[in-house]
């Protein structure tokens, strides 16, 4: 069973790296979908079945389709990125890698706080989560509706065709 975890992890990291190094946008997106599936698989291993499902539906299903749609819509599949200068590029990569190394070394040397497993291993099942969600986290749940409302209006507002000329003052 342990090997399953390591294989999955290796694949996840590989897919994620491929996302950032493939030059073709469509390929990046497909690798991203792959990454999401792998992460879902991790969720299954962690017994978080509900989230595994949601992850597939929301991320791999909805969000990635949106991405793919936009790329196709804007006809970007030809738009292969050219790396002009290596200096900022390597600076970026090095600084990111440095952050990871620093973090990792700090992690290695420090002892995690030990917490007992109090709630058992069935927390990720839908009945447990539902109970907690609607009992303790009712309020954020409601607030989420406002979030979606804002996003919805926002998209409508931004996507709307300009019916009237923008008034003069708004043009900087």
């Amino acid at each position: 069973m342990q090997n399953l975890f390591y294989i999955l992890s290796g694949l996840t990291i590989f897919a994620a790296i491929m996302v950032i190094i493939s030059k073709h946008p469509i390929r990046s997106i497909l690798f991203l979908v792959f990454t999401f599936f792998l992460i879902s698989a991790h969720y299954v291993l962690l017994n978080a079945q509900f989230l595994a499902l949601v992850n597939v539906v929301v991320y791999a299903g909805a969000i990635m389709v949106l991405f793919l749609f936009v790329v196709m819509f804007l006809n970007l599949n030809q738009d292969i990125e050219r790396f002009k200068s290596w200096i900022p590029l390597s600076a970026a990569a090095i600084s990111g890698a440095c952050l990871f190394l620093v973090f990792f070394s700090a992690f290695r040397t420090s002892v995690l706080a030990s917490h007992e497993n109090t709630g058992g291993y069935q927390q990720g099942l839908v009945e447990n989560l539902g109970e907690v969600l609607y009992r303790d986290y009712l309020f954020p749940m409601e607030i989420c509706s406002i979030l979606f409302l804002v996003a919805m209006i926002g998209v409508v507002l931004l996507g709307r065709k300009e019916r009237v000329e923008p008034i003069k003052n708004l043009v900087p």
Partner: protein
Amino acid sequence: MMLALIILTLAGLLILFLGFSKIRNVLLPVAIVALVAAIFSLTTQQTFWNQYLTDMVQIDGISRKISLIIMYTALGLLPFFNLFKGRGQEELSDFLGIYLFAIIGSILMVSALNYMSLFLGVEILSISMYVLAGANRRSVHSNEASLKYFITGSFTSAIMLFGIAWIYVESASLSMVQLSGAATNMMSFGFLFLFTAFALKVALVPFHFWAPDVYQGTPTLFTASMATLVKIAAIGAFYRLVQLNYAVLPDWINWYFVLLILATLILGNIQAVSQNSVKRLFAYSGIVQSGFILMGFLYQSEFVDWTMLFYFIAYASASLVGFIVIHFVETQSGSDNLDSFVGLSKSNPGLALVLTISLISLAGGPLTAGFMAKIFMLSQSIQNNFTALALVAVISAVISMYYYYKVINAIYSKSADASWSVPFYYKGLLYVFTVITLIAGLVPSFLIGLIK
């Protein structure tokens, strides 16, 4: 608290529906009435339905005061939405709806007790602002502002979540108050990332790069809300976060803030000096002012809330006036460059007067709110033995006068422009803000009494 949120949500929905109707001139009154009602319910501490809050948010002393300041600021800006009338009923209703929801987001931010509601509040506010920044769809500048804001904002969210996640790893709880004992190494990392995310939101140097660009590109009235509402909410939430976790924070946290403050005061000021766009100048000014406000985060023995609240009021009243005047000048001349302000004292003396007073207040000129606010901050930090920091702050305040006076200089330079005017009700509102600035400068004890 719950009541206020419900009022604002319902009003937002109502406005969205009214946007489709043919009834004219009703959107703004609805928004204003709803906001006033929400303020009222918050002031009188109504407790209806508060049991549904379930420890996610809590409206205690400081968060109530910051929420009220935010709501009053929003109320002050609301009437100016009337200027968007030309863009049609639907558009106006969208703007107002989003604006009201943004207020909800900021109230959640400053009163959160749980990282979940903190995060949701931050996101509601941010998403609203991304949209408002891009409200001027045709303008490339507005698009760019929106895009930059959005990318930096979601990057910030990721960093913030990473921080929260590590705090969760160590404490196994998302509550902001249940921590005890000193922070472990990894938890310090978590806090560092979380605080850095807030520094990004507040736009403190060196995390400030996005702010001037975004402020400049955004339609000016929304920039005004970005500079006041969002900034106060972000600093307020930041402050509460620090205050709640004070016991567990590592000992170097003061120096973290000192570093941010020093960078902000020095670099922010220097960058502001050579600005030609007044809107950008105000953006930098906002950055520098938040450096000053951050001095309230430094503590030795106990937190002194009122100095920061006072600073909020001083800053909000002055910078609202500034941005609104910029809006009018921009409308008139088509640009926000310093040249557009030349001869404003001739062409529109009223606006020139209020802008001058607000600039003096931002610069920390005596007899205005800004002076008092700065004095309080400085004396507080001197008392906490950050004397060298206070000295740098004084020097930076003196440098800052240079660019504020540059604008004043332009306003009072002679030029033979034709005069123009703005409707009296807008002017009246501007006078009200100015009077607040002056009262806070002349009788600060009155205002401090209110705050306390």
